[in-house]
């Protein structure tokens, strides 16, 4: 009893002494107010008791954070350490990109966010232990020359030697040899991050963010901390920075922006039919995000394909469409069967699908209306309807490859028996590259779209990763966009302005001349 009284007094004295400090860390730790904010905005996913088991949780992969264990991915502290208050606020303010967690900076007031951060800490007894004081690691600043070829070469060297490729793959697309076996602490399937999509990194996509994640690890996931390697002189701090800078270099300088219209320039000569034809390097690529199909049963909440890059060119008589997307597995692949089982077991759906005995293939579909619409009206984007069918190009990594046909809703697809569609695909290091080719005009005008230049042709995309348990309506979908087959710029475009200027000048001079004559 005496001991306890003493401890209480020490804690009290320390509390008084550190009071100004505590205030600066997290003013007004009002957990009553925090509870109200939490109940209104957070409990739906994270659960009333903070166990990550809210009503929406079964539909999410990765699952919402379970606060009861106080294990946080995005921290400034060492592996296994508690997060600092600033770390908690950062996750609340900015959210976790690539997951269902949004940023709350603009939705809740400063006070509300601080209150809810304080309330989160009440879910775990670890925060109540005053002997644990989370301390941010001492992070160095970025060394100069991060973008130079030499720096990136060093970064790549250590990317290999510290084993990043084991999970993230040779090209960083999350397709390493261990990728199919990864689970989080709760046993849920988890993907190694696709390092070419830094806008989806949970902890942010800058080189500094990446360096911090290398130092701290992402607790609760397979991603370990690499800080010990610095202590053990396995590599220097600068070399670890080079890894971060190399990883950053795998993504575009800016996140892709969605543009509504794919412009397909007209080419002279041959159409590039092969996915890796060098001609594609000169063709502009357009990015389109995909989302889970959650309209028709069975709905799908955990799509693996986050977007497609699309390029198009045409000649006087034919069209080539190239679709590139990252996919961690070349399905069908038996190595991913266990992962499929885990995904299907983890994600709530409308039907209980047993894990397949045989692995499923990857699939991709491009959709157009059956005829180019006159006005703004388009068929239903989700594979049309009986009264307004759509014309589709479908490709599967197993079997026949490319097929064309008419869809009348998600349940009915009538393939053309004699397809005139070309389809070539290659899989390389976590990426599919697929080229569809077809003649612009065909004899069968009733069940094939007739492509024409100078028109906005609606187009939409669907992708399925068989190794992620995707089949049928469990797929990733886009909305309608447009494809425009550009006409070669006619000579009159350049001549007309000159003629117009000459005529204007002549007319002006005529007016002046007439005016002078009158005077």
């Amino acid at each position, binding site marked *: 009893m005496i001991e306890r009284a003493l401890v209480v007094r020490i804690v009290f004295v320390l509390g008084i002494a550190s009071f100004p400090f505590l205030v600066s860390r997290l003013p007004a730790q009002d957990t009553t107010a925090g509870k109200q904010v939490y109940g209104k905005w957070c409990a739906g996913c994270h659960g009333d008791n903070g166990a990550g088991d809210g009503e929406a949780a079964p539909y999410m992969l990765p699952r919402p954070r379970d606060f009861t*264990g106080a*294990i946080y991915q995005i921290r400034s502290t060492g*592996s*296994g*350490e*508690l997060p600092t208050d600033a770390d908690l606020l950062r996750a609340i303010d900015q959210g976790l990109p690539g997951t269902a967690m949004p940023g709350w900076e603009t939705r809740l007031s400063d006070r509300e966010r601080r209150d809810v951060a304080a309330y989160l800490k009440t879910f775990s007894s*670890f925060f109540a232990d005053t002997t*644990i004081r989370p301390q941010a690691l001492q992070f160095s600043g970025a060394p100069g020359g991060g973008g130079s070829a030499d720096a990136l070469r060093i970064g790549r060297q250590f990317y290999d*030697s*510290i*084993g990043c490729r*084991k*999970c993230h793959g040779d090209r960083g697309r999350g397709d390493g*040899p*261990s990728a199919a*076996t*990864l*689970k989080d*602490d709760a046993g849920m399937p988890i993907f190694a991050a696709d390092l070419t999509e830094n806008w989806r990194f949970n902890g942010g996509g800058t080189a500094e963010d990446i360096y911090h994640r290398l130092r701290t*690890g992402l*607790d*609760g*996931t*397979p*991603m*370990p*901390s*690499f*800080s*010990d*390697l610095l202590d*053990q002189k*396995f590599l220097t701090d600068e070399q670890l920075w080079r890894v971060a800078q190399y990883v950053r270099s795998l993504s575009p300088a800016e996140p892709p922006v969605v543009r509504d219209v794919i412009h397909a320039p007209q080419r002279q000569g041959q159409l590039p039919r092969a996915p890796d034809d060098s001609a594609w390097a000169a063709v502009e690529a357009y990015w389109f995000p995909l989302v889970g199909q959650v309209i028709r049963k069975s709905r799908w909440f955990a799509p693996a394909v986050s977007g497609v890059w699309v390029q198009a060119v045409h000649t006087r008589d034919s069209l080539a469409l190239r679709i590139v997307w990252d996919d961690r597995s070349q399905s069908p692949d038996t190595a991913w069967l266990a992962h499929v089982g885990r995904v299907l077991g983890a994600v709530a759906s409308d039907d209980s699908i047993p894990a397949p005995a045989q692995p499923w293939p990857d699939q991709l579909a491009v959709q157009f209306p059956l005829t180019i619409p006159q006005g703004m009206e388009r068929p239903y984007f989700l594979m049309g309807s009986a009264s307004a069918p759509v014309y589709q190009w479908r490709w599967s990594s197993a079997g026949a490859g490319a097929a064309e046909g008419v869809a009348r809703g998600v349940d009915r697809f009538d393939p053309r028996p004699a397809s005139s569609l070309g389809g070539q695909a290659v899989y390389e290091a976590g990426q599919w590259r697929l080229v569809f080719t077809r003649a612009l005009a065909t004899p069968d005008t009733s069940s094939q779209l007739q492509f024409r230049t100078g028109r906005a042709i609606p187009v939409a995309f669907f992708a399925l990763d068989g190794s992620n348990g995707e089949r049928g309506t469990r797929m990733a979908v886009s909305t309608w966009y447009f494809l425009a087959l550009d006409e070669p710029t006619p000579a009159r475009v350049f001549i007309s302005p000159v003629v117009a200027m000459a005529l204007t000048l002549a007319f002006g001079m005529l007016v002046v001349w007439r005016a002078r004559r009158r005077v």
Partner: protein
Amino acid sequence: MRRLGIIAGVAVVGVLGGLLAVRPGDAAPQGASVTGRVRFTGTKPTNPRIDMSEEAACKNKYTTPPTAETAVVNANGTLANVFVYVKTGLPADAKYQAPATPVVIDQEGCRYHPHVLGIMVGQNLEIRNSDPVLHNIKAKATKNRPFNVSQPSAGMKTMRTFSAPEVMVALECNVHGWMNAFLGVLPHPFYAVTGTDGSFSIKGLPAGTYTIEAWHEKYGTQTATVTVTGTGAKTQDFTFAAR
């Protein structure tokens, strides 16, 4: 001066402990002991083979294909890798000093050695990598803080400690999904792990009545109540049945 003496004493005990490679049960040689065997009845289980083809450096260390260690039944019909420990019965105010020598777990041939081990609260766990490949070591603790650190090359060592009792902490490597080990963290030295003969020995117990638990990763737990007096030796066997 007295403190210095204690420190020197602890250091000497530590060094001696290291030299003699004492088992945890030997930390307090006076007192009673509980020894026994863990028997296994029923059909001997077959552990699945591990496919190490992705990691040639590990695969090449085996002449016969390695298997998982989920249920290792010894030739004499006993069960290995059972963690036997005093669950309850020690005096509430008893304090036991953690040995200065670390407990070592080694990663070799893409497996953990040992597969099951015990450690005291505050004692160092030395994690070694004897493989020329990347391992990450994730401790999925719930009563302790978890951790997840990496060792990309052979010869690396990492020290970690645990601050609270926890039976068991699962260790795993995510690079090699088959690699796992189990660590029992206790506030006292009264624990043992069965080996190739299925026997265990817990020594130096003060007189009293104890609940002894035997834990196995596949077959769960069994408990027994044992009363020991003075320097007496008690035998307590456990039996796990196939399922």
